[in-house]
Structure formats: structure tokens, C-alpha cells
């Protein structure tokens, strides 16, 4: 049974990805930074449904702790699917953005990807089968007012993933980016009232977490073995 780590699984998209991978028969390791209880409950829900799942909590920006937790997880068997989904936003127009807002968002979204993915790569490569999926955002493709930090960090994932894809192409490991658009989750809050969505999104509706998870699940599957180094948006035509 292949093992899949999904970071940021306490969020709506992360949880949907966990459900999708569990349904595919993977052993799912649901990660949260601070919201450990939420992923414990998610893991219980998945096990109650007959799937294989566990929860783990650590701060993705703490490189040493991440490495230690991942080493323990991988002791059992290498983790062959990594979905780097943990994210954070601290919106502000750039002229008014604080250094802390810039730094925190880059730390979690971009450095967090490195801290979680890098330690898992050599063991994954040794199995000659792997899937790395980074969750980005359409903001990284087309920009978004108030999200220069978020867009920068997420766009950084694109360069990293494309390079990684080239490095691992001969070793059975693919690396791709999924860029969600406006997705109906609690994070949206009041920022996207229906009129705004109608004028912004060609399909005139938000997407669902399941629609994002469906693409992640496909990219993580055996059938997507010839797709690598790609950035694919799930955004109803936006961007």
C-alpha cells in the first residue's frame, strides 16, 4: 500500500485531497501545523470508512523538526506520494506590506515545501516510483491584488517543481503543480461575493475542494506516469 503525505490537511482542500487518496487505497498521512485535532478527527473519519490513515502535526517552517518527524514516518517504508498543500496568506498591498507579512508567507508556502519534500526524495527515488504535487494558486499565474507575497511564494513552487521534474524524470518520480482558482472554502470569507465571482470567473461559480482533489488524485496515480513538470489550474477558466 503506497504511503501518501498531505500537508495542510486541516484545511478544506487538504482534507478533500486526503479523502481522494484514501479512496484510491493509499495509506494517508494527514498533516497539520497547528490544528492537530482537526487531522486526528480526519484520520479517524477515514479509518471508520475502512481506509488506512494516520495524523501528524509539526510546523513545516521548522526544518529540523520536520526532518525528524519525516524520518520517523519513513522508517516504516518510504513515502512515495507527497502533496505539499500547507499554505498561509497574509494579504496586504505591497507598498504597505510589512517584512513579517512577506517573510511568513514565503516561509510557510515555499520554504515549507522544501522542508517537507527534500528529506523524502532520496528514499522515494530508491523505490523508482514517486509523485510530488505542490498546491499553488492562480494568483501565482496571473497575480492578485494584496497577494504579492502569496503569489511570489506560490510562483516559486513552479520553478522548483519544474526543476525537480527534470532531475527525477529518469527515476519514475513525477512532480507537478496544481493551481486552484476561487474555491468554495472557509478561507474565502467575504472576499468573493457571488457578483465578484460572476464577473471574474468564466464559469461564474467557485470550484469545490473535491474538484481540486480530483486533479491531485489523478496526478498522484499510476495513470499519470507520463505527466511531469506541469502547472495545471483548476479555476473554471480563470487565468
Amino acid at each position, binding site marked *: 500500500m503506497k504511503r501518501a503525505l498531505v500537508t495542510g490537511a486541516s484545511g478544506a482542500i487538504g482534507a478533500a485531497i486526503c479523502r481522494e487518496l484514501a479512496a484510491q487505497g493509499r495509506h494517508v498521512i494527514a498533516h497539520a501545523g497547528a490544528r492537530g485535532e482537526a487531522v486526528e478527527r480526519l484520520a479517524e473519519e477515514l479509518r471508520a470508512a475502512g481506509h488506512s490513515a494516520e495524523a501528524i502535526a509539526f510546523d513545516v517552517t521548522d526544518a529540523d523538526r520536520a526532518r525528524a518527524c519525516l524520518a520517523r514516518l519513513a522508517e516504516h517504508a518510504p513515502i512515495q506520494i507527497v502533496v505539499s498543500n500547507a499554505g498561509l496568506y497574509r494579504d496586504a498591498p505591497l507598498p504597505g506590506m510589512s517584512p513579517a507579512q512577506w517573510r511568513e508567507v514565503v516561509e510557510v508556502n515555499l520554504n515549507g515545501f522544501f522542508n517537507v519534500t527534500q528529506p523524502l526524495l*532520496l528514499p522515494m*527515488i*530508491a523505490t*523508482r516510483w514517486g509523485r510530488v504535487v505542490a498546491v499553488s494558486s492562480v494568483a501565482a499565474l496571473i497575480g492578485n491584488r494584496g497577494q504579492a507575497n502569496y503569489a511570489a511564494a506560490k510562483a516559486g513552487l513552479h520553478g522548483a517543481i519544474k526543476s525537480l521534474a527534470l*532531475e*527525477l524524470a529518469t*527515476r519514475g518520480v513525477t512532480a507537478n503543480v496544481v493551481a486552484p482558482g476561487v474555491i468554495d472554502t472557509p478561507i474565502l470569507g467575504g472576499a468573493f461575493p457571488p457578483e465578484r465571482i460572476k464577473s471574474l470567473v468564466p464559469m461564474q461559480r467557485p470550484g469545490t475542494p473535491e474538484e481540486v482533489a480530483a486533479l491531485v488524485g489523478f496526478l498522484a496515480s499510476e495513470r499519470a506516469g507520463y505527466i511531469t513538470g506541469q502547472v495545471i489550474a483548476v479555476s473554471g477558466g480563470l487565468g
Partner: protein
Amino acid sequence: MPPDSATQANAPPAADLSSDELELARLIVSALNLETAPEAIAPEEPLYGEGLGLDSIDILEMSLAISKTYGVELRSDDPENERIFRSLRSLNAYVQARRAR
């Protein structure tokens, strides 16, 4: 006159692998899933690029396998790496000199 057996006894002919070199070659072939037969690796041929055609990630994997098997640490930032990894023979010499016995 027959060759002086004392000078010939310890040095294998340059193109053949010593038993240590063969053992290392087997480790490399298995760790990297290479299609080459270990016996077919020429001891002086380049590991990187032409010759065996390995890339930087192969070197990483090889270093991990060597560390596990021989207890010899190879660091990716060692300035001597170009010399150490030049050929199977040079890599083996490095490993044999430092292995935990």
C-alpha cells in the same frame, strides 16, 4: 625467464577489476538499478558523463549506499569529489582507505 612473481602478485592487470572493485561495482549497479553488468565496468572509465553516464543524483544515491555498506561518508560538497568519483578505481581506493573494518 618467468616474470618476478613478487612484483606481479598483488597488482591486477589494469583492465581487470580487483575483488574489492568488483564488490563495489556490484553495489553501484544494484543501488542505481543500472543495466550494465558489474564485471563489465572498466575500472578506469569515467563514472560521470560519458563512461558509465551517471548524473549528480546517481552520485547522491551511490554515496548513500556506500555510507550504509562501508561506513564511509561521502559529502556532496567535498572539493575532492571530482577526483574521488573520477572512476571506479579511484572511488574504490578512497573507500578502502577509510572503511570501517
